[in-house]
């Protein structure tokens, strides 16, 4: 029983970086912009966050630095894809390749180093409840923060003028421009939010989840987060659901290994990627289902 609780806790932790990145990319895409640079931004932020955390000794400083690095790096994307109207797919790809190279280069000094941060915090009172305590109340605050962020984003999108504006820009930048919205400014903001969230996710990986810096350590999570946003048909709570499902897939490999089942670790490590492919195929089967919430201008360049 306690083992199941631990598995739930591990699933929530594993799902958190996907949720953080996914929520950020959701806002990013709701404005009509696809940023395939997610993986690169997460890598840069993982390296930057680790470096700041390592030198300052503060996990919070490291996480904030990661978010800042992600947002800053996303500005490079915005300058090209929004400012210079370059192809969004190619630009995002370039950002990922550049981020992978740059993080490997900048992170060399930190290979093999470790950081001493606490990875779990017990919530007084609640943590002692049998089962529930282990499953839900002995986690890192980032896990709860990610959920809170999901709620806030869902509320903003559905209930506020800001959310309405964002949806309008994503649906028809031409119309939004015609009635006088600063379309490009709004898009830069949405992309920066996406970058900051991806950055937070990357720094969470290197500072809390793993916690160490290894070249390429994001291991495709940026891409999985991008896929998640599509699976979730651009709805915040579905992103959360998807993130935890994928978290549980990651956990299956550890659970199986703990059970002593003889499957090579490399084959088990394929699971999240294979799961992404399978879910993507199942969901994409019905284009109408995807399109119902898809921002109509997604991926299309806009030049006023």
């Amino acid at each position, binding site marked *: 029983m306690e083992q199941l609780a631990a598995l739930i806790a591990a699933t929530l932790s594993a799902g958190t970086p996907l949720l953080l990145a996914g929520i950020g990319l959701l806002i990013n895409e709701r404005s009509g912009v696809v940023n395939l640079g997610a993986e690169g931004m997460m890598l840069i932020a993982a390296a930057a966050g680790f470096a700041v955390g390592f030198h300052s000794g503060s996990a919070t400083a490291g996480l904030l630095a990661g978010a800042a690095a992600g947002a800053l790096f996303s500005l490079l994307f915005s300058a090209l894809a929004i400012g210079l109207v370059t192809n969004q797919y*190619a*630009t995002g790809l370039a950002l990922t390749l550049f981020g992978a190279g740059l993080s490997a280069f900048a992170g*060399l000094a930190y290979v093999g180093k470790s950081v001493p941060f606490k990875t779990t915090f017990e919530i007084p009172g609640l943590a002692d409840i049998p089962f529930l305590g282990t499953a839900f109340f002995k986690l890192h605050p980032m896990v709860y923060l990610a959920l809170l962020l999901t709620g806030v984003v869902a509320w903003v999108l559905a209930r506020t003028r800001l959310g309405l504006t964002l949806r309008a820009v994503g649906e028809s930048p031409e119309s939004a421009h015609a009635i006088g919205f600063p379309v490009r400014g709004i898009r830069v903001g949405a992309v920066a939010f996406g970058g900051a969230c991806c950055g937070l996710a990357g720094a969470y990986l290197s500072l809390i989840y793993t916690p160490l810096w290894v070249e390429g350590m994001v291991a495709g999570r940026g891409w999985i987060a991008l896929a998640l946003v599509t699976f979730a048909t651009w709805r915040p709570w579905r992103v959360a659901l998807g993130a935890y499902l994928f978290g549980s897939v990651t956990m299956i490999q550890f659970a199986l290994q703990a059970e002593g089942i003889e499957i*090579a670790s490399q084959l088990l490590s394929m699971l999240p990627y294979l799961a992404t492919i399978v879910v993507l195929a*199942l969901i994409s089967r019905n284009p109408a289902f995807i399109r119902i919430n898809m921002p109509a201008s997604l991926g299309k360049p806009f*030049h006023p």
Partner: protein
Amino acid sequence: MLRLEARPAPSTLMRYTAPLIALAITVVFGTFLFLALGKSPLAGLKVFFITPLDNLRGVSEVALKMIPLLLCSLGLAICYRSNIWNIGAEGQLVVGGITAGGVALLASPDSARAYFLLVLLAGILGGMAWASITAFLRDRFNANEILVSLMLSYVGGLLLLYLVNGPWKDPKGFNFPYSKTFEAVAMVPKLLPGTRLTWGIVIALLALIAVWIFVARSKAGFRLQVTGHAPLAARFAGFSAREGIWVSLLISGALAGLAGALEVAGPLGQLTPQFSTGYGFAAIIVAWLGRLHPGGCLFAAFIMALIYIGGELSQSRLGLPAAITGVFQGMLLLSLLTADTFIHYRLRRS
């Protein structure tokens, strides 16, 4: 305030000078990077652009690196011309290497000398098979090919790791994750004695000519490009979008798989965990830098090979990490996209 203004017609001049401008921006960026790292920019640039070419061995190494870059980029150029965003050449290359390696391991010392052709064929089929998964899921389920092909690259990489750590590990290999070395008959013959360069470069150049004819002269190539450029026009003309998906991905998979086979049965002679140092991803940049044109890909593959070799040399000569290769690659693509803007737009004061 400066603003972008659409040109009445795309600028042909910019289209072909943009890669050179991008290269110049990257060199300037490199100069600052070397300065920031406390190295002499001149020495740094020399390592990247001159040292690799000042002797036969260096030239042969550059040519050797060009083989996978050129082959993968030719396939990707066809995909991108058909608007199929295959970014999984890396996975197709790795799986091509695996299937080629599998066949190579079956060879015995008294197999025929032409056995290596079988190895290459296995590589081609492996790459095609891997790409066909993406094609099938896109065609049948409308699944996004960017994500599928990329996820399959991770899966391919893990499959390779599994094989060289498990069933295919050389029992006499001191527990290193390598396969046995291949028999000589399974290897691609050398082109230049005394170097590592194989006939692979000739095969790659033949592939270039074939792709060139396909793209510029064949009706099938024309159909493919119409489905990519203008899907509605393709539907109007009666050209099949499904054909576009399958043909471009299969060609691209075949070329990437061939590249993988030429790599493992060429300079390496065995399967190793990292036999592809990101060639499939670098080839994306090569295809773009080469304007999705076969001739351009040759030039771009040459530049990219220099960056690869330069990265290796800068480790030994300048004490810089080899990861600098990735930084330059990314920088090159970013500057290229920037320069490309001015094909369709120009700056005006407003």
